[in-house]
């Protein structure tokens, strides 16, 4: 395990700027997304007075529970780690100008740990931001919203689970994206070794092509009869089986490539 730790340590010390740039990029893109995709949450947070005067405070408060949580956070959680990984992608195919005594298998494990760490670090910030929004809404609006419902005679109302009032908790559920990340990650790694230049775009293009091809192939099975299948295990395998298989093949191909690639 020591070489894996040493290897991760060399990457960390050579790219310490990521410690600051990851939260910085995350906050900037989170704010941009908040402005463009939050269905009015931006106005409520930053221009509440103007906004409530415009639409009427009572009706705004009654509508607030219907304001959805930031579902677009999934994109930030999933895509941003690849953006950060692009900054350090040369590590995947070139370790400066000297070889290091570390086996390809250990290198691969180090890359997986590195990817996971970057994913979790980015996720942590998105989670914190989204929780901050939840806390803000809970503290500022929960009681008044309940009062507004009471005033309207709508009693015993509960706020839906997908509301912005549970923005943080819903983000917590997005941790599931780690499975998708780990499924896509080997395509990215493989792309880095294979292309070196514009690897993200090229591997993304391949991924999209494979997804379309997979979708097309899937339509060839039981055409028009699919709705008759009710077995949940089938759907689990149907959804995860092909991408997971492709992913494992890609991990293996990356490992072999790492072992065989000439520098």
């Amino acid at each position: 395990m020591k070489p894996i730790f040493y290897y991760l340590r060399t990457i960390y010390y050579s790219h310490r700027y990521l410690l600051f740039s990851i939260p910085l990029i995350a906050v900037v893109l989170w704010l941009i997304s908040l402005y463009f995709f939050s269905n009015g949450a931006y106005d409520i947070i930053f221009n509440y007075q103007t906004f409530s005067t415009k639409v009427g405070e009572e009706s705004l408060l009654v509508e607030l529970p219907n304001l959805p949580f930031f579902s677009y956070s999934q994109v930030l959680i999933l895509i941003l780690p690849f953006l950060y990984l692009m900054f350090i992608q040369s590590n995947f195919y070139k370790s400066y100008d000297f070889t290091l005594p570390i086996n390809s298998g250990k290198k691969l494990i180090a890359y997986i740990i590195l990817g996971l760490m970057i994913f979790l670090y980015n996720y942590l910030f998105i989670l914190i931001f989204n929780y901050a929004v939840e806390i803000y809404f809970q503290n500022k609006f929960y009681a008044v919203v309940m009062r507004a419902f009471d005033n309207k005679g709508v009693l015993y109302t509960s706020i839906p689970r997908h509301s912005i009032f549970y923005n943080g908790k819903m983000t917590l559920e997005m941790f599931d994206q780690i499975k998708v990340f780990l499924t896509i990650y080997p395509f990215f790694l493989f792309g880095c070794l294979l292309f070196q230049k514009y690897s993200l775009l090229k591997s993304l293009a391949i991924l999209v092509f494979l997804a379309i091809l997979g979708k097309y192939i899937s339509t060839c099975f039981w055409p028009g009869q699919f709705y008759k299948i009710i077995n949940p295990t089938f759907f689990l395998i149907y959804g995860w089986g092909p991408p997971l298989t492709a992913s494992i093949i890609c991990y293996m191909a990356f490992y072999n490539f790492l072992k065989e690639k000439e520098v």
Partner: protein
Amino acid sequence: MLKIKNLSYFYNSKKNILWNITTELQPGNIYGLLGLNGEGKTTFLKLIVGMLIPKDGAIEYAGKLSSERSAEYLNDVYFLTDHSKLPDLGIEQFGKLYGAFYSKYDHQQFIDCIKEFNIPINNRLRALSLGQHRKVHLAFALACNSAVLLMDEPTNGLDIPSKAIFRKLLSRYINENRIFIIATHQIRDVDTLLDHLLIMKNGSLVLDQNLYQLSIQYKISKSPLDVDKAMYVQDELTGPYYLVKNDTNDESKLDIEFLFNAVTTNTKPIEI
């Protein structure tokens, strides 16, 4: 011992860069690897360290094959490339971080070499000039104490005093367990250190000989009496020089540059 057996390599299958090279390199020696530009010296070194994989043949050190690129093999064989691009770290930090990978790395030795080269130890690598980068890389390569140290143009970018320091360090750190291979065009920088000469021509080793043996067998003569016996003649400003058999069995003073010219440019192949 580093064993190279029937080694062949090509980038393009129509043209072999290296062809059927077989040799054994013994510990305790400093080898000079010479050849004209494009003869495959760097390719040869990259093959030894495992950056390239032989198309045919094998390279083996202590029972481990270069093509397997095992951590154990890479721990034993270090390659100093012809240019040094190091990560942006403090000098000491660089040594500690990357030295940790090598089982025989000696940090004190690294610091000593850095001091010997007169580089301020507290500097960051990005603050250093190209030549200083080279010195740090050289210091690191020596401090890794790998059994086989391959150096591609190690004196590139070094100033004149540093070349002398480099020679001093090489002679200090070579021992009976280590093999140093120096590929260079600047033969005058290292000729006094070399024990053994490897000369490449047309992808093959045309000379693979101990320098002491060579100096017993051959000599360079300026005497007109040797004209008929000359295997090679080189015209200099001071007149012609001849490469002839050494009949005395005493060690002669051989000039490596002269020998290199004799082997690579002579129209008649020299049987050595």
